[in-house]
């Protein structure tokens, strides 16, 4: 199978620090079953936000769904078939197997298509029929017209920044969603997130957050994406595991964001003056 599917069953609340009113909006959209589109750069917390919200929603409804959130990371070879399902050879017979989207539609889970613009264009057909009043999923290969479970919700995410304009979402797709914009948090908020996620001391976490802020200033000129909160947390994780701060930043930040030697040197220099 070409897609990677994460089945999410967390007993502990996934940590998420709200930056604006996104929690309320998501909740309201869910109660009206409006599909949601999350826009924002890599590693700024979109996936975590969906996990957090799903956990909260299912905690409140006391729904005994085994798999409340199905995440599909889209890539450029992901086709509609990968989402809907396919025939597999099993022993002597050829049997139909549901894809992750079909499974979510049947059971009433939240289906989260991460980086959806990466997927092939034929996937939009599925998205369109599921996101208007019809809420149906046509399955060509079996001839089935599947009506969505009342609890089912579709959440998409995409990153308008680095993907080429050719891969932008079509307005007809975009206008079916409630759009929530995400960005990297402020230095204070990011420091709090890093400190919580990696269990790092506050001053160190703040320094990492400042590194994030400064390195993001180079975005688009030196390289396509700024350093993500995720990378900063990785660096923090390494530091709590006993790696020296400079070395941790070196492997988690400097070498991770670009292969260009000049950019790497510049980022290393920025890290170098901010860390003690």
């Amino acid at each position, binding site marked *: 199978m070409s897609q990677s599917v994460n089945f999410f069953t967390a007993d502990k609340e996934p940590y998420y620090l709200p930056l604006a009113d996104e929690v309320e909006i998501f909740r309201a959209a869910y109660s009206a079953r409006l599909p949601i589109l999350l826009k924002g750069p890599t590693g700024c917390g979109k996936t975590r936000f969906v996990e957090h919200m799903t956990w909260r929603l299912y905690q409140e409804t006391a729904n005994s769904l085994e798999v409340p959130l199905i995440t599909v990371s889209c890539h450029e070879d992901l086709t*509609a*078939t990968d989402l809907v399902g396919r025939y597999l050879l099993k022993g002597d017979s050829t049997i139909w197997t549901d894809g992750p989207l079909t499974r979510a539609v049947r059971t009433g889970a939240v289906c989260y298509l991460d980086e959806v613009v990466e997927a092939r264009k034929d996937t939009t057909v599925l998205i369109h029929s599921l996101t208007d009043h019809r809420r149906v999923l046509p399955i060509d290969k079996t001839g089935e017209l599947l009506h969505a479970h009342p609890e089912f919700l579709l959440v998409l995410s995409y990153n308008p920044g680095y993907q080429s304009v050719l891969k932008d979402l079509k307005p007809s797709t975009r206008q079916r969603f409630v759009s929530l914009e995400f960005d990297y948090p402020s230095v204070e908020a990011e420091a709090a997130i890093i400190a919580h996620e990696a269990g790092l001391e506050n001053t160190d976490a703040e320094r990492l957050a400042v590194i994030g802020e400064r390195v993001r200033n180079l975005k688009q000129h030196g390289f396509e994406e700024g350093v993500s909160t995720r990378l900063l947390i990785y660096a923090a994780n390494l530091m709590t595991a006993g790696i020296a701060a400079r070395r941790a930043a070196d492997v988690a930040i400097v070498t991770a964001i670009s292969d260009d030697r000049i950019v790497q040197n510049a980022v290393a220099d920025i890290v170098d003056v901010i860390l003690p």
Partner: protein
Amino acid sequence: MVSLAQSEDTLALFTEGIAGRYIHIKSTEEFVNHRRLAYRPDQTGQSSDAIYLPEHINAPDHNGYRVLVMEQLGLRECQTFSFRMRTALARVDTLKAHYSEPATGTARSGDFHLLFGSFTHPNLAADLFTLLEKARVQAYLLRTYPGLKRHLQNYHNHLLSTESPDIDPLSWGHRYLWGEANIPQQWSLLSCALQNLEASSTDVYDSVSELCTLYSLIESAYVFTETDPYPQQQESLPDWLNREQRVEEWEEDLEQLDERLMAVDMLAAEDVEAQRGDSGDAAIREAELDIKSLADERDTLKRRIDMERASVQHALGTNRANARSFRYDEWDYQQRRYLNRWCRVYEEPLTGSDDYDTTELRDAIKHFQPLVQRQLEQIRPTGLQRVSRVQDGDELDLNAIIEARQDIRAGHSPNEQFYSRKERMQRDVCAVFLIDLSASTDDPIEPPEPFDWDTYQKNNNDNLRDPFDSEFEESPVDETPKRKIIDIQREAMVVMASALDALGDSYGVYGFSGYGKDNVEIYTAKDPHEAFSQRTLQAIASMTPKRSTRMGPAIRHATHKLTQSGHAMKVLIVISDGFPQDSDYGPERGNHNYGVEDTAKSLQEAQQKGVETFCVTVDRSGPDYLQRMCPNERYLVIEDMADLPDQLSKVYTALTTG
């Protein structure tokens, strides 16, 4: 000694990261050559869009440059340039003793100029102030950027060990900041002051206060004579920076005034409404008077802002905050060597706006589209293709399935590749079009062409039938504007752009011009990763003839951009109207050999880096120099300008399918 050239690329990115906006990193020599401001090549300084660093510094390693950059950024972060004399007078009591309203001062006198003018030797005061601010900034940097400490100490230790101490108090002050432990007893007051300024609560006015306290002590150390005065500096850079910042403050005031004026205006109008028929004439007159005085105040301020902005620009040069800059080598064919980091290229986006009429360009697209499209269709990719027998796909491959079934029945393990899928056949091409925007592209083309494409054929026919008729009919002065080379270049570019967009290749459109080696300009109409849009049309429409044609650095920059794009096939097409020339392109003006040789070298470099190059010119004497300039005879001289779009698409097809 370390030199700037080796680390300036990294340094520029570093500076952008720390400062949060792009700042040009320039060699101080570039400043000395071009400005009337007194400036020494061994100094560090800044203007609003650049930081000037010495070409060579006495430092243990390149981190010395980083320390210098941080010191300059520190001055910005510590608000040194937001110093205001009025605030200083209110806050620093000791300053009042020195200061007297200058007789020649105007509202536009610089605040630093006023401050230092309060002392008998303004330049000594300025140097002392710089030292005091340095202490404050250094302490701030060490607090905010703890990692800088190592480099600062390293650099300072190096300076301490290599530079021998002078006797004057200012140099001892600097040595104190470098960490010198044995400051002569007589200057202990100075070192105390420097130490006081290290506290985090200090601001620029504390430095001013220390300046007032220390000035007489420091001055007493110098013996000034008529023949040996303190080195004079006519105008100082910080003063201009300070004044530039003040313009921005004034503009805020202006906005407020505008708002107030509008509010009063509305109020007055309401009053008039309310008191119509009433006997409120006096009140109305009062309101009018109010409006008049406000309007006067606004106009004065507006005039002052305009004048100040003009003088700041005159002093500091054109503000190139929107541009990014790069330095490139140049080939000196007489000495057979590269001149290291010789030319500065500014890359500036052409924003375009609604003011530019794009209908003409749209007409050109309509006219040429079918022709160009036909050319480019030869290279259109085949689209989606179904690939069978793959591990993973959207459909089962029936043949493979049957074989697999047979294998299973026969007891063999089947081949697992029994799917088929659609795959896109992609071209991976990036093209850059480099358009000459020299002044000569403003020339009309001969013979002048009709303006309107629809009537093009008709007029031609008319002329064929009766060639003299039209001449007699026309008025003696030809009123239709003659079409210029630039018009055709612009049209050819939009036609190519729209066609390439349909093809799906990524491409960039850049204009180039400039004046002198430190001012090569590249104008970005479209970057390869942008989509073709109305904005692209406007940007191309806003391409206008500028100045010279220094081709070498422009080609080097385009090559740099192409190699960075990461595409497999890279194509560079240069469109020009004559030989490369610039004011200092070679030792003698008018001799084009130097320019031709440098351009030839830059094209060779491009080829070595895997870029396919091609030159298109409309200059009929082109073959003379193009033969020497372009490798493998890759050039084309266009006889009839109207052929440009057609020829360009042929060239493009040949280059990208070859």
